């Protein structure tokens, strides 16, 4: 059984087709990096896996389950971190409250907090190396720390699949390194991570496969199969290859609008 299986899906948002005939599968625990220009349908693809957007054609399955028919079961298996601009930073929630959100939203109403829930939440915060921040105000943390708290929230239900939407956006180098070491740790624990980013760097070294999306899939494969100017130039006309610390680095040249 595939972890993720997407077969020929097409998605329409309003009167615009944002995904067309997209097919790919993830068969073993791995890190899949999805890149693509603005409006390529990257976030929409994640939303299809979460059961938030329904394709008008084709089928998606997560662990053999349909995200729409078996939404509740699928949501128990997935952890999700949205783009940073989807969060309202003015709300004075503590880090503990943010992480607990991941546990409580999976419970039925009235979502009472049990000692176990707090333990789970604290454990997943400790996994991010941030157990001392439990009572801190979330919005007062640095961007990197906030991203780690959101990953802790996503991990609080012990999901097998992690969907991360542009978690590296706007982070300084040190925060990027921290986040990379966390992704490495998650990979070693055989979790599947699907991460959407605008650039290949800095996730490239950890990626088992790269999916280049521009409404439909342009290339999908292992990094050495994907990373060639011939394959990427038609999608990224501003693409540049530079040399950094003795290795070739591809800059796709498509920053978030």
């Amino acid at each position, binding site marked *: 059984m595939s972890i993720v299986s997407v077969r020929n899906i097409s998605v329409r948002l309003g009167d615009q087709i944002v995904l067309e005939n997209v097919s790919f599968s993830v068969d073993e625990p791995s890190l899949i990096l999805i890149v693509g220009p603005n409006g390529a349908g990257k976030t929409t693809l994640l*939303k299809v896996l*979460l059961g*938030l957007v329904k394709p008008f054609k084709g089928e998606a399955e997560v662990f053999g389950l349909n995200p729409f028919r078996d*939404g*509740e079961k699928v*949501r128990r298996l*997935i952890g*999700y*971190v*949205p783009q940073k601009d*989807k*969060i*309202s930073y*003015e*709300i*004075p*929630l503590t880090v503990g409250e*943010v992480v607990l*959100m*991941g546990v*409580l*939203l*999976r419970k039925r*109403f*009235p*979502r009472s907090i049990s000692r176990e829930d707090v333990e789970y939440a604290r454990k997943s915060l400790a996994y991010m190396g941030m157990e001392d921040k439990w009572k801190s*105000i979330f919005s007062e943390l640095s961007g990197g720390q906030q991203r780690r708290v959101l990953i802790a*929230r996503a991990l609080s239900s012990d999901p097998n699949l992690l969907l991360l939407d542009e978690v590296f956006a706007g982070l300084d180098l040190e925060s990027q390194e921290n986040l990379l070491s966390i992704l490495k740790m998650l990979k070693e624990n055989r979790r599947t991570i699907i991460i959407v980013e605008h650039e290949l760097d800095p996730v490239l070294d950890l990626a088992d496969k790269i999916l280049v999306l521009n409404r439909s899939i342009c290339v999908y494969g292992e990094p050495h199969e994907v990373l060639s100017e011939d394959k990427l130039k038609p999608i990224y006309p501003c693409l540049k290859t530079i040399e950094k610390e003795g290795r070739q680095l591809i800059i796709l040249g498509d920053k978030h609008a």
Partner: protein
Amino acid sequence: MLDPFILRAVLGLLFASLSVPISVIMLLRGSLYITPEISHAALGGAALGVLIQTFISSTFDPFPLVIVFCLATSILVSYMGKSGQQSLGMMLSVSLAISVTIYAVVRSYLPADKRVLVDGYLISDLLLLSEANLLSLAVVSASAAVATIIFYREFIYVCFDMETAEALGLKAELYDLLIFSVSAVTVAVAARALGVLLSVTLLIIPAAASRLITRNISRMLTASFIIAVSSGLAGIILSINLNIPTSGAIALVSIMLFTAIYVHKALKTS
């Protein structure tokens, strides 16, 4: 023995203050600024309600129609808000224009004794609350307070991160609609108690002041209620002693209290 007018004013204030915590949720939702526009919708509802009472059924209570107008405006605004700031701004202006036009046109057809009823929604006085008004205030405000307490977590999650809340199975849009609906009902209640023009002070100022006092959300909800009640009581006392309108006195005390809290905080942080 307390004067029955004052007793009703105090009870009205207590009931209306139960509506204030949902304003804290609207503040956290970043939508408190639509409260004045929704409150103006009350005028249109009141005018139509009094028109029905005058020409169709003398037993008709305009208050439910006031609630319907506020609800409709709030739901439309929440819906249009998803299409962007331009659509939201347009909807706010159009709904304001419609309500004020209905108020102005309908009012001109009403006899003088009925105009007073409609105008009571523009500038009202807590001292003039009838027992029927008190009852509707109590029912609606208590329902709003109960909804805020029961759905506290859902409301906060929707305000903080709607997308993840939805991804984890919460009917986020439904709860968002509920926030706007409960808020609309409380605006109608406050308009009935204090009048449209001053209702804003009852709903916005205690919520804004609570944000300055504490960074704990559940304490903000409690603080907003306490601020509304205490500035209301102080306002009633002030109005009796200085012989000025009660609603105006309450608004005055609220503003003074907010200014004092703001200045205190500014001095503390500087």
